[in-house]
């Protein structure tokens, strides 16, 4: 498989074409905006957090296929997880995207389907596209009320 096919796998293209949970949550009690000043990608993450559990999570915004697919997959993965679990997924994702570590190895196995985003490691200029939604949800869960940035 070429690096391009590795990056733009069918699952990613599918999430780009039909992003999941691409909507606002009216009564979201956590909301955070993320912005990548380099390319103008913009995402807003909505979370309905109750009793430490992510009852609902969604996103809106505009960006490239990688950032959209990453946000879309994130919402499907984090829905129903506890805040602590979500934070641990964030840590692992962050390490996988920035470290270029062996995705078959221990910690990353827990990332399941999200490992498909590891193709981005070979494209340093695109790592921030994949990590934008994750930085943003991290800020939302921590209740940080400012625009998250990939910078």
């Amino acid at each position, binding site marked *: 498989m070429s690096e391009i096919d590795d990056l*733009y796998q069918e699952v990613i293209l599918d999430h780009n*074409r039909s992003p999941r949970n691409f909507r606002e949550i009216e009564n979201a009690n956590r909301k955070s905006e993320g912005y990548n000043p380099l390319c*103008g990608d913009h995402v807003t993450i909505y979370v309905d957090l109750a009793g430490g559990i992510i009852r609902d999570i969604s996103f809106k915004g505009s960006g*490239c*296929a*990688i950032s959209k697919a990453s946000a879309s997959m994130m919402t499907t993965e984090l829905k129903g997880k506890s805040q602590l679990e979500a934070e641990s997924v964030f840590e692992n994702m962050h390490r996988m995207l920035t470290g270029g570590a062996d995705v078959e190895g221990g910690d990353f196995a827990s990332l399941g389907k999200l490992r498909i985003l590891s193709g981005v490691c070979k494209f340093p200029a*695109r790592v921030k596209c994949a990590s934008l939604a994750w930085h943003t949800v991290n800020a939302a869960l921590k209740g940080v009320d400012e625009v998250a940035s990939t910078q």
Partner: protein
Amino acid sequence: MKAFQKRQSPGTRKASFDVETIRRDFPILQERVRGKRLVYLDNGATSQKPQAVIDAISRYYQSENSNIHRGVHYLSEVATASYEAAREKIRGFLNAKSQQEIIFVRGTTEAINLVAQSYGRTFLKEGDEIVISAMEHHSNIVPWQMLCGQIGARLRVIPINHDGDFVLEEFKQLLNDKTKLVAVTHVSNALGSIVPVKQVVQLAHERGIPVLLDGAQAVPHLKVDVQDIGCDFYAFSGHKVFGPTGVGVLYGKSQLLDVMPPYQGGGDMISLVTFEKTHYNVLPYKFEAGTPHIAGGIGLGAAIDYLNALDWDQVTAHETDLLAYATDALSAVETLRIIGMAKEKAGVLSFVFDHVHAHDVGTILDQEGVAIRAGHHCAMPVMQRFGVPATARASFALYNTKGEIDALVRGIHRVLKVFG
């Protein structure tokens, strides 16, 4: 699209323009990237350098390196002479009246900041208006916003039409008794539109308003004659015109520069310093505090020598032909939309797809060895005007070929194959 204006060539006879010969002058164009032949279409971001420029910089560091305007020794004399010779070349390049009007800066951005802070803070006041256009680069927006914040002036923006044309009628309507400065681009970096700068200057001068032109994207393509245009300030960057990064030029009319205070203080910009008072140096040194980018200035001089040796009628014909060919080729791609179809354009083709983001276009083209820019091009208001988050931008230089446009089109078809 109309033909480019001509760059006047000095009297000497020029060799006939042959793009393959030109390409051999630029060593980087022989490089392979990602296993493919490099197709460099990101000239709007920065241009490649001919061997003559690389050699001039090496020569300076190998055999002339010394500080200028200070030493009494041999090397300092040689370095000073080379640096000042570059200033004279730039004067000729812009057809400025005098070398005093040529100020070395780091680039277009610093040139505009210099005018905003030195001229703007001295001669503008609360309630005054500064007019810019809707297609400025951030470097011709932010310095004026900062100035407005400092003195309470107001920024007014000339709208553009849907093709990306500068509309003189709109400009006229914005001018009033409060307008104290006009700052517009000569060629838009995101759209390629050529602004009718001569008419802009004429209209502004009828009301006694000085005009600054951002020439960063114009100098690689158009003949610029600051006396003919009549502008008060003209700014450009060396690296976009086949010279090094880190050096640029502010042209200013000497009667304005004379009454402007220094922008930065330090060495070289003074004639006498005591703890009580400092007397400033004469033009242009008053605006050149500290040791400058000497090698950069010399390298820029070499770039201008290189351009002067070309037959610009033929270069212009080649570039016009290339842009027309690229416009036709990209227009033929289904679902591709060109952003910016101004009647007069130079060197830039911005495009978008409804279903593929520019970033993804850029990554896939890069795998084919084709370098373009993807993003907002430091012109976010232009993106907002056209309702797109970003565009893919191919930007051309005199060394590009139709074969490279074909490679771009093949790459675009690869993009469409991935995204279906």
